[in-house]
C-alpha cells in the first residue's frame, strides 16, 4: 500500500522540479512545448483554409484579424516557433547520425538553435515579404 502511494507520488519525466536547468534541458522542454504549440497552429491554419470554402464573406473576419497588429504578431510568433522547431529538429537528426554528442558541441549547437531561431525568423519574414 505504502509502495503504491510512493509510486503515485513519483515525479513525471523529465523531472523538471529536480534537475538544475541547462541549455540541453531548456531546449528539450521548449521543443516539447513548441511541438504542442505547432500542432495547434497547424490546426488553426487548417480552419483558416476551411473558412475559404465558405466564401469571401465568412473569410472577412479572419482577414481583418490577419491584417491587424495582433495578426502580424501571430504570424511572426508562428515564424519563430517553426524556425525553432526546424533548427532543433536538424540538431536532433545530427545526433541520430552520431554527430554533436560532445558536451561542448552540444552546448554550442544549443545556443545556435536559440539565437538562430530568431535570425531565421527575421530572414523568413524578409524573404516572405519580398524585402530582400
Amino acid at each position: 500500500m505504502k509502495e503504491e502511494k510512493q509510486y503515485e507520488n513519483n515525479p513525471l519525466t523529465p523531472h523538471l522540479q529536480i534537475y538544475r536547468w541547462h541549455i540541453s534541458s531548456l531546449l528539450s522542454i521548449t521543443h516539447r512545448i513548441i511541438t504542442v504549440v505547432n500542432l495547434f497552429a497547424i490546426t488553426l491554419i487548417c480552419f483558416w483554409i476551411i473558412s475559404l470554402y465558405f466564401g469571401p464573406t465568412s473569410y472577412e473576419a479572419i482577414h481583418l484579424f490577419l491584417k491587424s497588429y495582433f495578426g502580424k504578431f501571430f504570424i511572426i510568433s508562428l515564424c519563430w516557433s517553426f524556425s525553432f522547431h526546424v533548427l532543433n529538429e536538424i540538431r536532433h537528426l545530427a545526433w541520430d547520425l552520431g554527430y554533436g554528442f560532445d558536451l561542448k558541441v552540444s552546448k554550442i549547437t544549443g545556443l545556435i538553435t536559440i539565437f538562430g531561431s530568431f535570425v531565421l525568423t527575421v530572414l523568413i519574414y524578409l524573404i516572405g515579404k519580398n524585402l530582400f
Partner: protein
Amino acid sequence: MHISTKKWLFQKYSSAILVPLMIWFIINLVSIFQSEYSSLIIFFTTQPSSLLFSTFLIIAFFFLSLTVSEIFEDYIHNEKIKNVANKLLFIFAIIMPLITILTIFNLEI
C-alpha cells in the same frame, strides 16, 4: 522490429521530410497571410503549391502526432487515459488534414 523502433524511425524519416516543407510553407505563409480572398484561392488551387501544401499537412500531422504521443507516454501515468488520449490524437491527425485537403481540392477560383 520492435514497435518503438518503428515509431522512432517513422518519426525521424518524417522529420527529415518535414524540415524543407516547413521552411517552404512558413515563407509562403508570410507572403500570403494578408492577401485578398481571390489570391489565397489561387495559391491553394494552383500547382505546385496545392500539392506541396497537402504533403506538408500529411507529414506535419503524422510527425506531430507521433511526437505528442511520446509526450503522453512520458507524462500520463494512467494506462487507460494514455490509450484514449493516443487514439483521439491519431484520429484527429487523420481527420484534420483529410478535411483540409478535400477542401483545397474543392475550392473554386
